[in-house]
């Protein structure tokens, strides 16, 4: 009998040990002590089809460290915070990363995935709500975006009626475009005019009657180049490759891997996509139910076709990026890119059109 009881105790202890290990592992999720460090939020990244971020809204306080434990439950993702200098953290399946964030301004910050994890990758977004006293709020912009102030319909067709017959040269344009009136060279003119629109305006100037059509295109190219820098274009190129090329294609032809087999976007056709309307500006507003299934209604336009981009003003392009939609499944980038990044990206997009 003694041997029997020793065996029972031995068995009991072994099973308790197994249970204890399990409790230590699961405990932290239930608020109990465990072997993992205490964190404010344990955040699991999953493909949107698998549930997306495990926590969609995180609360934080200004100046107080926010400790996150991050992992991926399926494929490779990454964790990045929009409009911040925080480098993205790659999340490999099953591997853990600790991150501590400190916010110096209150506001709503968008965290998102920067890895192309699937066809609905862009929907991997969540919000960090930072509260507390500080002089200025972060994200909420003081004024409306330019496209709204101008009353632009960014869903409307903007096909350029005039396009250059040969690739314009900013260098050639620089030889004489500096002599154009200051109003034509201003930033406001750049933001509110499409290249084709400005070309038409230049063409209408009687003082430029002696200039050929190609000269005027060179001038427009020059004026566009004046609004950016090589460094900004280089940064924009990386941003484009990381965030845009999946759909728009590395070369801007609208042939990215995520849109293979989809029909080409028809400008102005106003594809039915109610969930991608203005409401999509709010990062947390896009619900799973309203956006599943029919996300990629059409492939984006070919940026290398001058008719597509040269008819759009920077304000229009900014609006498209800020709001997204257009029936193509274009994500909203307002909470992700800083104004400077957005500006650089817009300038970079035009380089696709200038090449032809």
């Amino acid at each position, binding site marked *: 009998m003694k041997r029997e009881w020793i*065996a029972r105790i031995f068995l009991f202890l072994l099973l308790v040990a197994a249970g204890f*290990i399990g409790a230590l592992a699961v405990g932290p999720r239930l608020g109990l002590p465990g072997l993992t460090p205490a964190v404010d939020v344990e955040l699991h990244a999953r493909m949107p089809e698998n549930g997306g971020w495990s926590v969609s809204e995180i609360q934080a306080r200004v100046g107080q460290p926010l400790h996150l434990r991050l992992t991926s439950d399926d494929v490779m993702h990454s964790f990045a915070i929009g409009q911040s200098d925080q480098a993205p953290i790659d999340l490999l399946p099953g591997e853990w990363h600790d991150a501590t964030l400190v916010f110096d301004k209150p506001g709503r910050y968008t965290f998102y995935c920067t890895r192309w994890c699937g066809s609905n990758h862009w929907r991997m977004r969540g919000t960090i709500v930072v509260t507390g006293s500080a002089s200025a709020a972060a994200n909420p912009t003081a004024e409306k975006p330019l496209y709204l102030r101008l009353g632009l319909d960014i869903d409307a067709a903007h096909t350029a009626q005039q396009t250059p017959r040969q690739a314009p040269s900013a260098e050639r344009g620089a030889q004489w475009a500096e002599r154009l009136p200051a109003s034509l060279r201003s930033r406001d003119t750049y933001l509110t005019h499409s290249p084709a629109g400005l070309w038409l305006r230049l063409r209408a100037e009687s003082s430029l009657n002696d200039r050929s059509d190609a000269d005027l295109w060179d001038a427009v190219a020059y004026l566009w180049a004046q609004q950016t820098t090589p460094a900004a274009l280089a940064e924009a190129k990386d941003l484009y490759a990381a965030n845009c090329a999946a759909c728009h294609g590395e070369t801007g032809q609208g042939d990215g891997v995520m849109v293979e087999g989809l029909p080409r976007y028809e400008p102005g056709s106003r594809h039915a996509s109610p969930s991608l309307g203005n409401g999509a500006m709010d990062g947390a507003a896009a619900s799973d139910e309203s956006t599943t299934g029919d996300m990629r209604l059409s492939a984006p336009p070919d940026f290398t076709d001058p008719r597509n981009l040269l008819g759009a003003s920077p304000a229009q392009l900014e609006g498209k990026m800020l709001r997204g939609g257009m029936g193509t499944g274009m994500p909203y980038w307002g909470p992700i890119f800083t104004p400077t990044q957005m500006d650089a990206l817009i300038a970079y997009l035009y380089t696709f059109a200038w090449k032809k």
Partner: protein
Amino acid sequence: MKLNTVSQPAQPRQEPAERGPRQSISRRLSLSRQPLLRPLFTSRVPLFSARAITLAGFALTILAGLFGSVVGSHNFAIIFVWIAWWTLLKLVFIPLGGRSWCAVCPIPMPGEWLGQRGIFPGASPCKFGLGLAWPRRLGALPISGSWLQAGGFLMVGLFSAVTLTSPRLTGWVLLGILALAFGLSLVFEKRAFCNHLCPIGGFTGLYAPAAPVELRVDDRAICAAHTEKTCYDHCPWGVYIAAQQDNSACGLCMECLRVCPNDNVSFNLRGFGRDFVESRRRLRSDETALALVMLGCVLSFSILFLGPWGGLRTAAYAVGTLPWALYSAVYLAFAGLAVPGLYALAVRLGGPLQGFARTLNRFARPLLPLGLATWVAFTISFAFAKISYVLPVIGDPFGVGWNLFGLATVHFAPDVSLVAPLAQAAVLLIGLLWSGRVARQDADTPRRALALQGYALAITLGMVWVLMS
């Protein structure tokens, strides 16, 4: 004096001998009679200790599966069950120990301990449970022997892609198996789950005759004169060891060795596959069916998991969808019809059938070394490639970011890119030759032997093709 009330052991009926006298017995080395090793066999403590550890490990596996990381490569349940344990089972336990895994398997133990009201037999004079005999049939469906095991293993293939990668599903499957074994032990006598339902027990027993170990009586005459049959009374498997002709039914628990009043049972070391030479027993229909299903499954799994057809894996993973239904139909047709059908054709080409099922059974033993070798080759394909996952999940069994003993960051990934294919080729060649030899021995005519060898060659070449793909 106690009367012998055992009229007939509950062991499944065995086919009568089909051919000539039993061949000469080769030399054995009785390990259980070695003074240093003998306590390992005569004491119940070592086996209990092993079972207690595997039961605790099983509990940990279920917990990890249910509550650990959903990423299979970081979950103890997936890595230990489908990589470590499976590899050990196929490369060590079965080839070297026959049903040795069954001896330490924790699954039947809770029910058995409850049934005998104690960990060790004899702890209580009372038994718990109804103790009913396992029915031979359920309506017209045969459920005794390996029929359900064969069907079960075939069905496993329908969900294998998901089960092998989903910790949650693995956890629930293991928990379900434990509960099923426990429940059945309350209703039926002996190890009903192990004998009739467990797919692992099914193929383990099927290939156990190939092992170089055995548990046998030394002198059958002593057993014949012993009227109490204490060995059968104590055998949890329902095996009467004196009548045992091969390893297929014995779970190696050594209980008969311990209780034999005449010390007439030995655990022997012998040559590989001596049962194929010395035993005259041919396979039963359920065993033949299981052997064919196992062959069909290993080819199917190799195509599915090792082949370059990603679309097939995607379909197998999408359980419940139309592509999965198509995959299932093709899989069942291939593993359940084509591979067995080819065997039937080979047997028929070898000569006239003397009763369809009986003839298939009579020449089915070459399927065993062939099947074992094919499964070993299949296992080698992923065992070494995935071995690097084993140590990290010991350091972090739940995949929550632990690093116990510094193991979670250990990267042990030996380069086996050259060794593994060579090992697979060697194993397949051994299996082919071994199968051919058994075919030559069992066949009634040279033509039949040639047909069986042709079948073995076809299966082997098929496996080689998949592995090379």
